[in-house]
């Protein structure tokens, strides 16, 4: 760096007070300052040269001897510096001071920069900012006034600032996501769980365990939203809830009936079990709380946590929604599509997806009787459906041994893979890993949505067939329920490393859990706000607004006639003054309303009649006839 030394500012002396002039009036100012002043002063048009303008009157005569020795006289003048001149001088002084200040600042900045090699704000990579941007950029089209466009520009600035600030908070995150890199020439596919367990630290190695429960049939598994508690339900009636990290048992009960599905409700305090005939709700101590006879022969259940809705699909093709917080059935539809045993929810917009034996996948919301979306995905039956966390990709697998990845924004197929046998179960992890259970084998694919995948990321062989799969939230763990029990597998890079404690906290205390429950209930979204686009509430209801404006315009031009109405006075104080007036008002309003309705109807029919008449009469050549007013 070259030394850019700035000289300190030195004030120039100003001592010009007198001009020395020769007898003939020719200017002879020798003073340096005056010369500078001449340089800086702006030349006005038609202004006299400085010297002439200056002097007023000679004060005295001074004689001096020249170098030749001649005697010369000199007139000494007192300069009357006029007001404008004084002002100009002041201005220049200010200018010089400002320049001095600037130089000082520059010097300071230079000194600072010498110590700080990266001045200014830290740069943020664009992808990170894009992650935190929501929605499209505000486009300034259609504003007619400058004020309007300025407002929009300000709003856009605020949104960008918010996105940047959110991107900066990433520096505060504690944990980093897991990963697995194979050696050169090796593939991650060949790495077994035992290898992994041997290499990682003790706490992580403990996450790979197996529970041998051969007696009570294939197990369905479910983790709570914060990934702390695990619920297992064996088909032969064994239901158990454990804290899988500490291996502490919450409850264990045998319900003495076939158990089709088990699901945690909003917290680890309650869970629902779909039994042979009806659905039951149990406490975390195994105490039966409710028996829901409305939900009969349920095969699959899904809990929508932000709406407190339990969606259940039964063997007779009936889909029903129950509001768990108030215990009411919100909606129930007979889908007419046969036995429903493939079900999945879209975590980003709470739409329930069902897969059918004809190869179609339908999407439902509690408001509508018909499915919102109906897609033909496979040529034969759909075996399982899974939807990614952000709600962008859907994976379906069919009996025809294909696995297809669909884009849920455009409903187009992205990839299609051929697999050795139909994947009976599928699950997406928080980081986008896809786990498939095909018979005895569990395969995990990495990045299957955005690009074509050649080989699985990890694979594991079990001793019995897989019944259900779920990734544990916020952990690098995959829980597999199979015919002889439960296995927990380590999948590096599956879980979200940094949880948000205000959303779901795996380390929450009892007090925090209680508060969280209250907050969740206060924020419960009503079921009629479930749409394909979850942010529809924020958008302008253009259609509704248009309709109201049109209605207003229709009514404006109707003048109701004056109403005459005399109420009948009842005897003996029954008709009090106030009541009489109210009655009169009410009757007049009613009559007005009737008249307005009739007038509107008349107007509409009148218009139509006019139009019809217009078309009937008249020749093609009528337009050339002279109009007679």
């Amino acid at each position: 760096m070259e030394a850019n030394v700035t000289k300190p500012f030195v004030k120039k002396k100003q001592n010009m007070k007198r001009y020395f002039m020769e007898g003939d009036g020719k200017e002879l100012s020798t003073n340096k300052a005056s010369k500078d002043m001449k340089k800086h002063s702006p030349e006005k048009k038609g202004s006299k040269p400085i010297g002439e303008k200056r002097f007023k009157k000679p004060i005295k005569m001074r004689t001096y001897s020249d170098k030749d020795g001649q005697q010369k006289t000199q007139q000494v003048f007192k300069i009357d510096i006029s007001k404008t001149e004084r002002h100009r001088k002041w201005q220049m002084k200010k200018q010089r001071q400002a320049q001095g200040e600037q130089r000082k600042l520059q010097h300071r900045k230079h000194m600072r920069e010498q110590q700080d090699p990266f001045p200014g704000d830290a740069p943020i990579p664009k992808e990170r900012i894009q992650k935190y941007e929501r929605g499209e950029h505000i486009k300034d089209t259609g504003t007619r006034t400058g004020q309007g466009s300025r407002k929009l520009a300000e709003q856009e600035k605020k949104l960008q600032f918010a996105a940047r600030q959110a991107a900066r908070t990433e520096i505060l995150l504690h944990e980093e996501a897991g990963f697995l890199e194979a050696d050169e020439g090796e593939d991650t596919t060949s790495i077994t769980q035992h290898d992994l367990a041997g290499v990682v630290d003790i706490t992580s190695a403990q996450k790979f365990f197996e529970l041998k429960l051969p007696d009570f049939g294939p197990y369905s598994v479910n983790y709570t939203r914060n990934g702390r508690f695990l619920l297992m339900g064996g088909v032969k009636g064994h239901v158990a809830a454990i804290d899988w990290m500490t291996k502490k048992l919450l409850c264990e009960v045998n319900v003495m009936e076939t158990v089709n599905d088990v699901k945690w409700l909003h917290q680890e305090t309650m869970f629902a079990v779909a039994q042979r005939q009806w659905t039951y709700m149990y406490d975390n101590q195994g105490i039966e709380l409710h028996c829901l006879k409305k939900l009969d022969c349920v095969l699959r259940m899904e809990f929508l946590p932000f709406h407190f809705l339990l969606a259940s699909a039964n063997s007779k093709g009936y889909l029903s929604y129950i509001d768990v917080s108030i215990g009411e059935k919100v909606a129930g539809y007979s889908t007419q599509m046969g036995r429903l045993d493939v079900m999945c929810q879209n975590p980003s917009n709470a739409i329930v997806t069902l897969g059918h034996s004809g190869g179609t996948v339908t999407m439902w919301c509690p408001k509508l009787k018909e499915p919102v979306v109906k897609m033909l995905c496979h040529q034969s039956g759909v075996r399982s459906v899974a939807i990614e966390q952000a709600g962008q990709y859907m994976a379906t697998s069919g009996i025809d041994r294909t696995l297809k990845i669909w884009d849920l924004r455009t409903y187009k197929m992205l990839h299609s893979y051929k697999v050795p046998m139909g994947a009976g179960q599928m699950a997406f992890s928080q980081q986008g890993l896809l786990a498939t259970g095909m018979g005895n084998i569990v395969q995990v694919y990495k990045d299957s949505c955005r690009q074509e995948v050649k080989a699985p990321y990890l694979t594991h062989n079990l001793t019995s067939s897989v019944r259900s799969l779920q990734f544990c939230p916020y952990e690098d763990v995959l829980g597999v329920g199979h015919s002889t029990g439960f296995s927990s597998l380590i999948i590096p890079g599956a879980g979200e490393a940094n949880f948000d404690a205000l959303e779901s906290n795996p380390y929450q205390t009892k007090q925090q859990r209680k508060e969280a429950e209250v907050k969740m209930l206060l924020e419960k979204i009503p079921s009629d706000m479930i749409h394909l686009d979850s942010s529809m509430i924020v958008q302008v209801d253009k259609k509704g607004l248009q309709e109201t404006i049109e209605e207003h315009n229709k009514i404006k031009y109707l003048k109701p006639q004056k109403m005459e109405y005399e109420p009948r006075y009842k005897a003996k104080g029954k008709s009090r003054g106030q009541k009489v007036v109210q009655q009169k008002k009410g009757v007049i309003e009613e009559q007005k309303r009737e008249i307005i309705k009739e007038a509107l109807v008349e107007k509409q029919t009148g218009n139509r009649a006019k139009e019809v008449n217009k078309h009937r009469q008249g020749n093609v050549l009528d337009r050339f006839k002279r109009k007679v007013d």
Partner: protein
Amino acid sequence: MKVKVLSRNPDNYLRETKRDIHKVPRNYDPTLHPFEAPREYIRALNATKLERVFAKPFIGSLDGHRDGVNCLAKHPHQLSTLVSGSYDGEVKVWDLTRRECISSIQAHDGFVQGLCAVPDGSSFLTCGTDKTVKQWSINEEGRINPEPVVTLLGKTVFQQIDHSLGHNSFATCGEQVDIWEVDRAEPVRSFTWGVDTVHAIKFNPIETHILAGCAVDRSILLYDMRGSAPLRKVILKLKSNALAWNPMEAFIFTVANEDYNLYTFDMRKLSMPLNIHKDHISAVLDVDYSPTGKEFVSGSFDKTLRIFPYDKGHSREVYHTKRMQRVSVVKWSLDNKYLLSGSMEMNIRVWKARASEKLGI
């Protein structure tokens, strides 16, 4: 092979002792926060509903007057002192904290038409239908000296009185607008424009030499104390009952009109109002601004008080009680927390300016 499996140390996420606060790690990634828009909508809805649940604006009433309350004056330095004048000529000083009357005097023979405080807080001025202006001294506790300091006699009935904040002079209005100085027995200056009575007069709190008044010929007049003639006049469709200057914007004032509306004008351009505030269902009788200049309160013949934002056309709040009759005078307290309304049934009521605010009362 390189492996890293996510393993959290519980010590980083659990608090050490019971006296610590809980650790709350945050992650602002949008994928971890689904349903942002509906949840925010529900939260906003709940907050509004709760605000209405906790809206209990009425604090208390000051009763003691034997006739309807005609005017109120705020003490310039003491928040808990209030002076009120009624239709029987009585002037009372109230202590708002205990809601009691400190002292009362029979100030005038007829109505107490106008009441204002002298800015240094040592005295206040009253004017009445008995054509007098009297200055009363008030001590720190709020006791009025029963003998007026100064009595000024006029030729005609005075309708209202107001004191300038920057000059040692006050103005009265009636048949004409007079500017007085305290030590002079005759008005220093008189303004007339036409033959109609001016029934409201207010000094601008910022440009302290400017006055505005409302006259019976449906007009609003602007005067400059230093000039010899009135400045401007604008005529509306119906008569204006009261006027209030915005304490934060030097040139904005609001008038309360008979046609159920309030009009906000810019003094520099009287041809069009800046805003029309519509919500009352009967004539608006009085208006007063909040000390922040962002809102004002209006009292009307329809027994209600309404609070309007300064730039909106409709009110944000309405206060009414079965027992409160025509609201003749309203005031907004100088700490921006309370409203005072004087009404025809001889009561002065104290309200909260923001109905769901927790004030510890």
